[in-house]
């Protein structure tokens, strides 16, 4: 139909079938040597358009927006802090942001919201920021979605950044999803790759989809700022340079803007864990193959020696062996540690979705056909209950020596 968002030209299509293979959504079939797109399955991702050698598939182009892109300058990083401590993802974003800002010939700016946080501005400069915008107000003592979003919207409207990055943390995702709607910006979640397109100067945002089985590169060509949340522990931070110079702007925000309808009653710190899995560089994780909750002590011992966090598969959490905040995978948390040690975890696609981007994956499993062994950097077919205490002993030796 003429007004379909994507269409195949019957004159140009040769029925070669390339687009069928390219489609990640199984939305194309061949009928009478002609590609037919099922619009109920199609997500307009454009993979088929790229694959077609005959330019037979056309997609409706977005009508150009009325946003004057030239007005938007600088690369911004939302500096997440908790009780005055800067979240480490902020430094990673500054590291990446520095490169993006240099490629664009623009300044790198950090936005710091909080109460009594001003002296932290220098830390952000030391990590690469040229400017720091600080809003220091009692209303910002704790993260509150509405108030933080209102402050950020004020600053974005005033200064018009070209790019705005935030950590894909619990707080970051809740916050910038509100900001993006308010300022009518494109927002890409959980990016693992960011670069500037040398021709268009657009931000190319790459993120995993379907649990990392496919990757998608996304742009927001007609809207600014270009907003992304970025996965923790993927980007590299710069070494702190305390001598680095930058400017700090104390921002005033009009009375009445920073109003929250929600009220923070209290905070209860997680007591069961020493290291939380979202932050951990090493995770020792257990699944159904640990057989009983008492065996999680073996994971705890190794984690203790390594300074690691303890994770778990859904099966172990559902069995009540360990709390939900430890669950790795699709219905739990996505983690990206340097080392992930999976013990007695078979490696269902839902679990792999939550940990497959870890640098080093170690898998210990009795079943030689367990899918986790195919993903693992180092695989061991064996009994985790036997091997874990031996590993703990080995690392006690190793870490004492170093």
């Amino acid at each position, binding site marked *: 139909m003429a007004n379909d*968002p994507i269409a195949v030209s019957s004159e140009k299509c040769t029925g070669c079938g390339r687009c069928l293979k390219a489609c*990640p959504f*199984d939305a194309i079939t061949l009928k009478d040597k002609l590609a037919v797109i099922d*619009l109920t399955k199609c*997500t*307009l*991702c*454009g993979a088929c358009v790229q694959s077609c050698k005959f330019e037979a598939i056309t997609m409706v182009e977005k009508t150009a927006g009325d946003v004057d892109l030239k007005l938007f300058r600088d690369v911004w990083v939302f500096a997440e802090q908790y009780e005055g401590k800067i979240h480490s993802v902020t430094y990673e974003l500054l590291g990446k942001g520095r490169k993006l800002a240099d490629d664009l010939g623009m300044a790198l700016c950090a936005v710091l919201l909080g109460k009594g946080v001003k002296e932290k501005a220098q830390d952000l400069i030391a990590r690469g920021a040229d400017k720091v915008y600080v809003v220091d107000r009692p209303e910002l003592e704790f993260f509150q*979605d*509405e108030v933080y979003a209102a402050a950020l919207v004020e600053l974005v409207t005033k200064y018009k950044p070209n790019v705005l990055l935030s950590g894909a943390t*619990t707080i970051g*995702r*809740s916050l910038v*999803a509100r900001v*993006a*709607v308010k300022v009518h910006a*494109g*927002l890409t*979640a959980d990016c693992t790759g960011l670069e500037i397109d040398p021709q268009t100067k657009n931000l*190319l945002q790459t993120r*995993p989809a*379907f*649990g990392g*089985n496919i*990757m*998608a*590169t996304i742009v927001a*060509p007609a*809207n600014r700022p270009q907003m992304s949340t970025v996965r923790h522990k993927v980007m590299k931070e710069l070494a702190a340079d305390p001598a680095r110079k930058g400017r700090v702007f104390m921002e005033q925000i009009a009375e009445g803007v920073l109003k929250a*309808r*929600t*009220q*923070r009653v209290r*905070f*209860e710190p*997680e007591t069961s864990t020493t290291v939380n899995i979202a932050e951990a560089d*090493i995770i020792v994780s257990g699944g159904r193959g640990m057989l009983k909750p008492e065996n999680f002590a073996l994971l705890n011992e190794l984690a203790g020696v*390594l*300074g*690691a966090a303890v994770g778990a598969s859904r099966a172990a959490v559902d069995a009540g062996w360990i709390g*939900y905040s430890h*669950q790795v995978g699709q*219905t739990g948390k996505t983690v990206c540690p*340097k*080392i992930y040690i999976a013990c007695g975890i078979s490696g269902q*696609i839902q679990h792999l*979705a939550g940990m497959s981007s870890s640098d*080093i994956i170690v898998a210990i499993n009795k079943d030689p056909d367990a899918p986790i062994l195919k*993903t693992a*950097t*180092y*695989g*061991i*077919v064996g009994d985790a209950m036997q*091997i874990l205490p*031996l*590993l703990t002993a*080995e690392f006690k030796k*190793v870490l004492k020596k*170093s």
Partner: protein
Amino acid sequence: MLFGLEDWPVHIVVCVKQVPDTTSVRIDPETNTLIRAGVASIVNPFDMYAIEEALRIKDKLGGKVTAISMGPPQADAVLREAIAMGADEGILLTDRAFAGSDTWATSYTIAAAIRKLGAVDLIICGKQASDGDTAQVGPGIATHLDLPQVTYVRKIDEIAADHVVAERMLDEGSEIIRCPFPCMLTVVKELNEPRLPSLRGKMAAKKAQIILWGAKDFDCDPINLGLNGSPTKVVKIFTPAPRGGGEMLTGEPEEVARKLAEKIRDAVIAISG
């Protein structure tokens, strides 16, 4: 109350999405791509907790639960499932004009439809959908409707006709937040155990008339819909390079433990040493 005058009982809207069932998704070992043919569709797992919580609140306070979804015509299956569990009605937003919506356009469209419902106290969404994993649509809906939100709700401590006290799961612990109605919550798995549909529920779901709304059925600006209303655009889809060939360590337990310790020794020392 949102856009309404009634103050009792509560009207809860629960947002549900149809997603491919990842338990049946397999990877083609040769091309390393997803095999999607024959993959069943299910209710997004996190949305099951949203439906369950809406029903529990209704059981406690009385009122009405409306399930809403956006998608192709066959997505009515997820609304029937919500009705089978106990939801009172299902509304499917379906129109070619919605095709290609990103999270901005999706949240705009759903918010506009909710506005048409009039008196709504509470909107409940799953934390995120298992196919897109963005966690952006819930807060997006709240912002389009100018509502407060509590995301990542793991427990409801208190609920009344005009407010909720909820525990939000943060990395460092739980934040207990009091939020007045109307508001939007996104929920995580820990919150509850979704019920199985009763036989009566299943019968009701079979007979239920799913309400179909296209772009002309509620007040929305076509410029904000679908591909055209979506600031983001996918420019490339590719399969990541498979992980470098793994190495199997073999031998007696003592031997493999020692081999493994050697292999990851440097990485461990760099982190913990």
